[in-house]
């Protein structure tokens, strides 16, 4: 990824040195990483909104309104994934690492995979939104 804004669901205060939240819809904050010419140019955070049953489109609209281009999740349900696709946000998957920075570095380097339909939550072991 050479240019754009990456969002990472984060614990606590967030930030590049923080840790990722396993439940993107329930996360406390989103860490935003702005990338220009393959380099990190700016870090910011955005407070997540209230999570309610069936409110999958709340974070979708929130991130779309903040011009996010890519999202990295540990797990996601079918409905929010389809929502992100509809608003043009690419969803990447890494269910192994808790730290934000190495995952972001891999995304910028093109080493992360976009999540596939058969990797969504639903009868499996992933963490839903």
């Amino acid at each position, binding site marked *: 990824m050479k240019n754009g804004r990456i969002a990472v669901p984060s614990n606590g205060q967030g930030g590049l040195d923080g840790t990722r939240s396993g439940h993107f819809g329930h996360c406390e904050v989103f860490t935003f990483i702005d990338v220009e010419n393959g380099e990190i140019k700016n870090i910011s955070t955005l407070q997540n909104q209230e999570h309610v049953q069936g*409110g*999958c*489109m709340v974070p979708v609209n929130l991130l779309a309104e903040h011009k996010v281009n890519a999202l990295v999740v540990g797990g996601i349900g079918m409905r929010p994934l*389809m929502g992100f696709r509809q608003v043009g946000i690419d969803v990447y998957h890494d269910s192994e690492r808790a730290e934000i920075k190495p995952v972001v570095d891999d995304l910028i380097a093109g080493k992360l995979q976009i999540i596939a339909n058969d990797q969504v939550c639903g*009868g499996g072991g992933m963490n839903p939104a």
Partner: protein
Amino acid sequence: MIHILLVSSDKDFFTDLASNTEENVDLSISRASSGSNALSMISGNRFELVVSDESLSDMTGLEFMKKLVSTNPMINCAAVSSLSSEDFHAASEGLGILMQLPPCPDKTHAENLLQHLKHILSITNTAGGLN
């Protein structure tokens, strides 16, 4: 105006929600008799909520929800199911269904559903600021 689509082969399905239109002038209720009929209606019209019966003439309610979510994820949905809440959660995981309704939902369910829907619609359109 909140547009709601009720999907059931029973023309009297969830009449308590439909009767709410008399009390809530901001509701518009439409009906579809099957899953495929509903998907066709959804492709050409705006709906904020789709409520499906447990069994439709051409698919189950949950099968319909999966088709709906894969093509129209922005639409909120509720579904009738006789499963326990735990089993329903497992069966519908990832579909983002805002409420499980019992067979033959009544006026109380209608009021709770509308209240929950209005809350979701209010926060869906509210974006926070960057720190």
